[in-house]
């Protein structure tokens, strides 16, 4: 991996702990024990090819920031609805110069486990629950779709004002603490952020803005070109096919998504990745595929970063390299029983 001149922001992970679909706390009753053993202790033995519960991810973050103290630092982002802390990892070389920022979040939707697995891979769980855990209608209804809650054409299309729906957009734009935390942070640094990546599953897609309209962003051609190059790089690794296009064109209409919001506040490169697979296992992607998925996704993300680097570092008119910052955040919203 080429030495990071920048800072990478990784944000990700909503993992419900043992949440069954019906909302009860359900340890799978007849879980086949294929991975037992003592709880993980040290970074050396951390397995990146298994799914991890939230406590282990938190511990991992701490240990990463301790071990790589000069490069990786853990920061507080905000609190979830259930008053759990959210952290992000900032990865950058120390520097006196101001930096450009690349943001990546994984796991804004709780059931898309392969996404946070990728985030962890990139740095070194109700299971099918998608939304957050906020309470509405006097506690009779739970969860906002955080990726419909951002302040961009909020709730205009592809989202619902009904709390019972899975694409419930919240009580208002940026009504949720998780959305507020991400928005505030990204907004405060938007002059410096050149790239915003949000990792999801499934569908094997690289999506450009917009979902709320079929109109295209001003740099649409460039985004498609960079996206297609990333998909090609991804395919070279294990032959996996990804399709590239705007969300409204090749997926479905959505409003209030983080990707669209990021683009509209001026972040030029904004993508949603929908990782493996194509529906065979869907959200419940076998852990055995984590490695291959992460390897190929890595190629795609690096390809995007290469193009971003070309554009923003090589074209510096003063002739000096402007260092960049990569911010890796973990959007933590632990869910618990109804």
């Amino acid at each position: 991996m080429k030495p990071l001149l920048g800072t990478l922001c990784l944000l990700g992970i909503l993992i419900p702990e043992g949440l069954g679909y019906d909302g009860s706390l359900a340890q799978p009753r007849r879980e086949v024990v294929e991975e037992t053993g003592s709880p993980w202790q040290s970074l050396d033995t951390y397995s990146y090819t298994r799914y991890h519960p939230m406590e282990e991810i938190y511990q991992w973050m701490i240990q990463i920031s301790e071990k790589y103290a000069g490069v990786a630092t853990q920061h507080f982002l905000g609190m979830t609805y259930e008053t759990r802390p959210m952290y992000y990892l900032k990865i950058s070389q120390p520097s006196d110069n101001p930096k450009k920022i690349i943001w990546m979040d994984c796991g804004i939707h709780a059931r898309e486990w392969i996404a946070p697995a990728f985030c962890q891979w990139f740095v070194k769980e109700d299971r099918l629950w998608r939304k957050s855990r906020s309470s509405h209608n006097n506690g009779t209804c739970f969860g906002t779709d955080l990726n419909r809650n951002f302040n961009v054409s909020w709730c205009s299309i592809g989202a619902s004002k009904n709390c019972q729906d899975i694409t419930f957009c919240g009580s208002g734009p940026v009504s949720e603490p998780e959305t507020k935390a991400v928005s505030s942070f990204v907004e405060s640094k938007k002059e410096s952020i050149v790239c915003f990546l949000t990792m999801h599953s499934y569908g094997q897609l690289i999506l450009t803005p917009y979902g709320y309209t079929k109109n295209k962003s001003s740099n649409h051609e460039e985004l498609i070109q960079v996206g297609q190059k990333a998909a090609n790089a991804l395919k070279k690794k294990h032959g996996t096919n990804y399709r590239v296009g705007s969300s409204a064109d090749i997926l479905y209409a959505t409003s209030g998504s983080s990707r669209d919001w990021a683009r509209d506040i001026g972040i030029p490169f904004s993508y949603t990745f929908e990782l493996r697979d194509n529906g065979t296992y869907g959200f419940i992607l076998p852990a055995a595929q984590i490695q291959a998925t992460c390897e190929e996704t890595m190629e795609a993300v690096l390809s995007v970063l290469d193009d971003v680097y070309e554009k923003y570092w090589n074209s510096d008119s003063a002739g000096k390299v402007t260092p960049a910052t990569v911010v890796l955040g973990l959007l933590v919203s632990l869910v618990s029983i109804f």
Partner: protein
Amino acid sequence: MPPAVSTPPAPRPGVPRPSALLLALALALCLAVPGLQAAGPGPGPGPGSPGVPGAPPPGLLRQAARAALHFLNFRAGSPSGLRVLAAVLRGRAAVDARRTCRVDLEFTAERYDPEVADGRLGRCSARVVFRHQKPRPAVNVTCTRFMETSRSRREDFLLYKRAKRLRAPLGATSIPNSHGWIDPSLRPIWDLAFLGSSYVLWERTTQTLHYYMAQLSSVNQWKTNEDAIDFDYMVLLHEFSTQEIIPCRIHLVWYPGKPLKVKYHCQELHTAQEGSGTEEGSAVAPTQPNNF
């Protein structure tokens, strides 16, 4: 079975003839859904490229391919021969005055089980007719074989024997578990669950709605003492365009080589409607898929 008869392409929009305008409008309506948006043309080469007048959007072709394969899987009744869509090759769509949307297409398919899939693709051609936003698309489909008939019968029979010996975990279960793991000994349950779900998935696929089987959530009954496997279970279906999870109860009776019998009942989450259906034997569809 004869290949699907090809139809003349829809006239280009903009041609100032009343019938052409009506057909162009109907073609657009073929895709429009209030409150939802059908996937439109995507970038890049391939069937349905934007800018080609009259070309159907690739989203519609994929919908048709999925409907065709679910129907094929159900009709074939072969849990070891399940297929999924690989890629759409080409296709065209036509709409009539009643907004019935007829899609003719060719596509490739691969084996459902990724562990067994060896990269070999079968080639399929199909005609799929969607009645305007109504379920149960009419399907006429042919696919080339993945393997010789005798071998597929043998694999089904082996699966049958394993199923007969299997003590299924009764009650609530998660297959696969949260980590995506299916115990190999339980694989016949998963394959049969998907086979039964194929009937449900076919019935429910429309121009805009398509489903995947997300998880087997309970085994209510697994009877193997008679000849046939009698399997009653709950699955969670994931509908892609709405992202909803829909629980369905399915009851199937299967014996290798015999037509599959299926009954089902799905909960709709907050509409009043519920969906259910029954299929017994081969009395219903006009044609048999010729894949064996």
